[in-house]
């Protein structure tokens, strides 16, 4: 068969294709987008990238909340007279075509002025004329061309974000001063004696002093603050010897030029801070389009439809929902509060909250919990609790979410720094007392020289460059880490805990097995055609699995919600659904999801749905079992227990029916026994466990959709590589240790000059950049070597 894919979105368009303009489309939605673009002469969209689009989704009524003035005001960046500016987050932005089409929106809509895409953040900033165009029509228009913006409760709360650019400024100031000071101190490096140089020396020196002032006072600010904080909590962190070095450098240099003793070390001083800031900048690789801090707010909608007592539908802000309100939840909408179902068929997908993979059907009068997603048409609900008091949102009031993991962790650099600082101070004092006895004029000189040369620039640089580089390498392999500290913590892990649904199982895949009497050809055709009419997810999965059959028109078809379907074709009658529904009595209790079949009141058999586990699961667990304690915590029932015991190594602990709090407590318990726990999860139900663990990794089938707050996000396709990534982080620690050795060697050489009292500025000026640069080169080459060995 010829392979056909949609011209617009690139999806398989084998089953029902639409041909338009000699191009194949998978659905009408895609075709419409193509039409819009071709009418407006925007066909370049398809030239830049093959099949760049997304199918527009049904959004009827979804953005009604954008009629509310209060909400609009919160979302807009700028609003004056007729000009409004808004920044929208669009998850679909992924290629150059996206940038192109979004920056040419004014071709589609005359009211839109400029639109600027930030590819890294996946945002577009749109300026439009609000005279006869609204934010709602803009969002609707974007959705209609497949670029649906994501607007959540989080946008409402944070409002306008301030971008922190202080590091760039500090780096700029330090670089500027470093360059100029180097340039000014050049004549004195060569110690040219002569009248000319002697005459201008003071000018050069005071200029250098002026240049170094903003570096010490502004660029080095963070180091002073961090060292002060460290000392106050009685910790000798790496910033303490750095600050010591900086202060001594500055004071001694200033004293030297005041008393005309020498040039001072302003070149080394500015260079040191510049290199340190470069390291900081390099380490600060962030994945702006991923958020590691998400809580329920990024999942929740901003507005929801409320029915007033007069029966009028109005849009209301989620925080304004009060107990007793009547709300409308549309298809695919999230229920924001605990409530009671009043009207309509509720089929709620709680996978966000509980990890349970199956959607549950509810009757009117049943209680519904916040976080569930309605899958089947419109329902009406009565509110029981406000947003903050709902069951799901209460999880976030747990203390785990308030503690900062990064601060509680003593990094390798800081633990070395403690011994380092003490050793340096010892050497300084011993050398000084030696010189006090032999030649007291040199004593002060030696004391300061030791502190200057020992300033741990190279040590402070080795971790940022190693981690920064590994962070980038892992990012390319689709393993996105929140920050560099995660690599260190990852290397220390000894216990691994996995969630089941969505983590070790693939979300979209199930394996189905049939047992019972074999169906004949007619029955199979009838079954296939019966399933064709149903929208139930189990029917869809089963339908896709069965062989192709002719399409026949059924004489009678009826779907019984929550029970099954029955259909008639000529003389044949078929029932598909639960055991009770088809009239099968023998079934006692089966924890697995099953679909039973009977034809002409004759029981045939059942299809059992098993979770499909991710590729390489067994191999991964077997390679992990020697070094790590393994456990699986599942929110699901124990239906898969047998299957899992077969797949996984014997010592893996399996725990089922775990509530979010149970998972959190389980991890807490193991931590109290000294274990370093890695949690791998996917849903909101794991959020507590991910926050409690030492390293929380969220597995995601599509990194653009949302994953709960965590330390790292791993693309699901790379799940089987988890072990090699952990090994890579262990090697990174080894690299850092080696670069420590290297920088100690430099320090020994430098200390020789310092202790013997012959440290000239030029030696410091050579040794300091040399050690820093060689450390950077060493760590970069070494991490790239590790990176090349990763899959």
């Amino acid at each position, binding site marked *: 068969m010829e392979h056909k894919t949609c011209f617009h979105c690139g999806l398989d368009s084998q089953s029902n294709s639409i041909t338009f303009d000699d191009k194949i489309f998978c659905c009408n939605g895609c075709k419409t987008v193509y039409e819009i673009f071709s009418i*407006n002469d925007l066909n370049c969209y398809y030239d830049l990238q093959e099949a760049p689009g997304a199918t527009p989704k049904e959004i009827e009524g979804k953005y009604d909340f954008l009629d509310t003035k209060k909400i609009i005001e919160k979302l807009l960046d700028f609003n004056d007279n007729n000009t409004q500016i808004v920044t929208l987050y669009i998850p679909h932005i992924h290629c150059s075509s996206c940038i192109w089409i979004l920056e040419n929106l004014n071709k589609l809509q005359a009211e839109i002025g400029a639109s*600027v895409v930030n590819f890294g953040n996946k945002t577009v900033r749109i300026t439009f004329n609000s005279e006869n165009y609204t934010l709602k029509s803009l969002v609707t228009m974007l959705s209609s061309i497949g670029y649906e913006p994501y607007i959540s409760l989080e946008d409402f709360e944070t409002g306008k974000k301030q971008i922190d650019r202080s590091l*760039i400024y500090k780096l700029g100031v330090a670089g500027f001063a470093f360059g100029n000071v180097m340039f000014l101190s050049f004549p004195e490096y060569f110690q040219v004696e002569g009248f000319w140089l002697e005459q201008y020396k003071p000018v050069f020196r005071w*200029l250098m002093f002026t240049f170094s002032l903003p570096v010490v006072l502004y660029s080095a600010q963070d180091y002073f603050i961090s060292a002060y904080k460290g000392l106050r909590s009685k910790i000798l962190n790496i910033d303490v010897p750095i600050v010591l070095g900086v202060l001594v450098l500055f004071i001694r240099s200033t004293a030297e030029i005041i008393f005309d003793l020498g040039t001072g070390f302003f070149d080394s001083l500015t260079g040191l801070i510049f290199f340190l800031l470069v390291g900081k900048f390099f380490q600060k690789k962030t994945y702006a389009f991923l958020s590691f801090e998400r809580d329920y707010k990024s999942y929740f909608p901003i507005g929801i439809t409320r029915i007033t007592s007069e029966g009028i539908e109005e849009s209301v802000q989620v925080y304004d929902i009060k107990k007793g309100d009547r709300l409308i939840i549309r298809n695919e909408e999230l229920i924001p509060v605990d409530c009671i179902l009043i009207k309509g068929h509720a089929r709620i997908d709680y996978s966000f909250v509980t990890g349970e993979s199956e959607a549950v059907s509810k009757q009117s009068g049943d209680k519904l919990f916040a976080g569930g997603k309605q899958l089947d048409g419109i329902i009406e609900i009565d509110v029981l609790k406000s947003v903050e008091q709902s069951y799901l949102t209460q999880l976030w009031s747990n203390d785990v979410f308030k503690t900062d993991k990064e601060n509680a962790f003593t990094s390798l650099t800081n633990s070395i720094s403690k011994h380092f600082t003490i050793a340096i101070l010892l050497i300084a004092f011993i050398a000084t007392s030696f010189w006090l006895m032999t030649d007291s004029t040199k004593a002060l000189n030696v004391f300061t020289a030791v502190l200057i040369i020992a300033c741990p620039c190279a040590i402070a640089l080795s971790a940022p460059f190693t981690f920064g580089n590994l962070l980038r390498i892992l990012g390319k392999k689709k393993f996105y880490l929140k920050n560099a500290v995660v690599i260190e913590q990852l290397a220390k892990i000894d216990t691994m805990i996995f969630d089941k649904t969505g983590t070790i199982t693939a979300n979209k895949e199930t394996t189905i097995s049939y047992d019972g009497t074999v169906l004949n050809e007619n029955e199979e055709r009838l079954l296939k055609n019966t399933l064709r009419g149903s929208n139930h997810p189990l029917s869809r999965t089963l339908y896709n699995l069965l062989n192709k059959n002719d399409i026949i028109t059924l004489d009678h078809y009826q779907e019984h919600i929550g029970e099954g379907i029955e259909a008639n074709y000529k003389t044949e009658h078929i029932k598909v659904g639960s055991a009770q529904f088809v009239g099968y009595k023998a079934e006692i209790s089966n924890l697995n999801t099953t679909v039973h079949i009977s034809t002409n009141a004759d029981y045939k058999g059942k299809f059992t749905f098993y979770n499909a586990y991710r590729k390489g699961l067994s191999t991964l667990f077997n390679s992990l079992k020697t070094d790590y304690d393994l456990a699986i915590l599942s929110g699901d029932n124990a239906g898969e227990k047998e299957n899992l015991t077969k797949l996984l190594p014997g010592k893996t602990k399996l725990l089922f029916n775990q509530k979010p709090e149970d998972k959190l407590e389980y991890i807490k318990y193991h931590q109290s026994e000294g274990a370093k726990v890695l949690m791998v999860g996917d849903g909101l139900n794991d959020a507590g466990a991910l926050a409690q663990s030492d390293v929380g990794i969220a597995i995601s089938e599509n990194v653009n959709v949302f994953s709960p707050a965590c330390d790292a996000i791993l693309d699901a396709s790379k799940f089987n590589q988890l072990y090699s990534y952990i090994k890579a982080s262990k090697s990174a620690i080894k690299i850092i240790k080696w670069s420590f050795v290297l920088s100690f060697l430099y320090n020994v050489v430098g200390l020789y000059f310092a202790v013997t009292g012959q440290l000239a500025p030029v030696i410091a000026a050579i040794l300091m950049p040399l050690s820093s640069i060689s450390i950077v080169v060493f760590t970069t080459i070494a991490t790239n070597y590790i990176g090349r060995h990763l899959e």
Partner: protein
Amino acid sequence: MSVIYVLLAISIIIAVAFFIAFVFAVKKGQYDDSYTPSVRMLFEDELVKENSNKQIITNKD
């Protein structure tokens, strides 16, 4: 003799001018997004084609 002062003054003024330019560039957000501009500059050719006609059909959708 005092030409050295003139030279120093010039060199520092130039350096400071560049530094101010840098500060302005950061302030205006030029360092916020380092990827998109590299793609955007390749679009020029397609845009020229756009300017030709078709203003009337625009409001159709």
